[in-house]
């Protein structure tokens, strides 16, 4: 360990101490609070199975919200990502689009949900609109990054035929970035299902609406059923994502066959 490394570690520890003091981090309070956690865990295990059908229905509603939000969000994000890519457009086109997308990404989905609850009233529609906005901001950003990293050789070779920009996008950009897009759609859908579970906090529907209300009334057993359904759903979506990735993404990116086990 060099003296320079020691100084860096010392600085990091000092920053940790200062930051912990500023945020009132108190390890003693944490240890003292542990018995409360035991009470919650006991109540969580006292699950009430009669709420399972309601939880499944709420989850189904949440998945539908995430599905619409992801599909519509991606449909809006795609053309925006083409306009925001630096290798396809002039500065006058991509700069304002990038600024707009950065503004959209500034708000987390919960803030968008709050805004849409004010606009269209509480309920699932406000949640769907919030998911759409969040998806547009992130998928467009990830996709224009992917477009900019496309191999320039096919772009040059096809561009040198004298094709139009639309043809270049349709026949080179879209197929070359398709595997990235599929990967992003899967990630976004997974993320949106989890995100929709929280949007209920501000009255934007979904399974989160139930979870937050049960927690508010200290009914942890009922909340636990709903949380368990979220957990299982997320695990299933993750498993399906892995299978789809293996079949369509890994193979095309590395040029090999992948056999699902």
């Amino acid at each position, binding site marked *: 360990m060099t003296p320079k490394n020691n100084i860096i570690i010392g600085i990091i520890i000092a920053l940790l101490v200062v930051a912990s003091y500023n945020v009132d981090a108190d390890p003693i309070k944490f240890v003292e609070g542990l018995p409360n956690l035991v009470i919650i865990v006991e109540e969580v295990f006292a699950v009430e199975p009669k709420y399972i059908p309601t939880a499944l229905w709420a989850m189904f509603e949440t998945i539908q919200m995430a599905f619409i939000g992801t599909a519509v969000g991606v449909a809006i994000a795609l053309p925006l990502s083409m306009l925001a890519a630096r290798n396809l457009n002039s500065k006058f086109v991509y700069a304002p689009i990038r600024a707009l997308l950065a503004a959209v990404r500034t708000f987390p989905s919960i803030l968008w949900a709050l805004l849409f609850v004010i606009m269209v009233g509480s309920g699932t529609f406000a949640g769907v609109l919030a998911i759409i906005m969040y998806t547009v901001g992130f998928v467009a950003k990830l996709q224009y990054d992917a477009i900019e990293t496309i*191999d320039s*050789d*096919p*772009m*040059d*070779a*096809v*561009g*040198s*035929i*004298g*094709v*139009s920009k*639309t*043809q270049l996008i*349709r*026949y*080179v950009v879209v*197929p*070359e970035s*398709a*595997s990235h897009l599929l990967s992003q759609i899967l990630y976004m859908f997974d993320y949106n299902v989890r995100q929709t579970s929280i949007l209920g906090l501000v009255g934007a529907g979904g399974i989160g609406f139930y979870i937050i209300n049960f927690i508010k009334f200290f009914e942890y057993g009922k909340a636990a059923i709903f949380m368990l359904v979220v957990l299982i759903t997320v695990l299933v979506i993750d498993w399906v994502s892995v299978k789809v990735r293996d079949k369509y993404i890994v193979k*095309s990116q590395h*040029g090999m066959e992948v056999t699902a086990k």
Partner: protein
Amino acid sequence: MKQIQMTKTSPFSLISTKKIIQINDVWTSYDSKNFALEGINMSIDRGTNYAIIGKSGSGKSTLLKLMNGMMVPSKGTIKIDYVTPDINDKKFKKMMHTIGYIPQNLGLVKNVTVLENILIGALPRLNKIQSLFKRFPENEIQEAKRILKLVGLFGKENRKVYMLSGGEKRRVAIARALMQKPTILLADEIVSELDHVTAREIMNLIADAQKKMNLTAIMIHHDMQLALEYANRVAVIKEGQKILEIGVEGDAIVDFQTGDMTTDQIMEMYANDSKK
């Protein structure tokens, strides 16, 4: 000295003496300080197979990019069929439709099929709706299949490009260029990484296509022997300058640069240059 096995007659024959490419005192640079090409002069007849050879970084690829309008010279003039290459010029943009360009890494779209890659060559002939919805007319699909057969890929039209071997990928790139119904083919070291047999198969393929289509081929090579076997003319580029231009006439190699070097002197000069 390198041993050259000369063919009695080149597989290519001059079809017309009309100049299709004229390059006059062309200089070009990437960074305004160092020149990639310095005072290049070339005059290429229609139907010629013109080879450009030289070491890496000598400016060969830059020369091809100038010919298809992807780069503009800092000084000097270039005329392709009497038109200055400029991608913003309508007349040249139309001409680009019939200039086949195969870059060193082939420029294939790897996530689509062989047939789709070849059909890209027909895009300039499609209207907006057809190209947006990938509705290629039946005659274009039949033409693509005919070319597939010509390049020896029949039966592999539905394979994704990433599943092909190096030689097969080169055949796809050639097929895409032929699909353009080209008058000029620009190929950047497309046989350099191939074994002796496959390289000659690919070169024979281009030679056949050239005879059938009255094509002018400008091809970059690393190997002088291969260049002399197939080309009518060979230009040697060194550090951005054309140091040698030779022609193949029967068994003789003729110096077109100064006009006074013998075959032995030319080969000795090339062999000495290769050692450096």
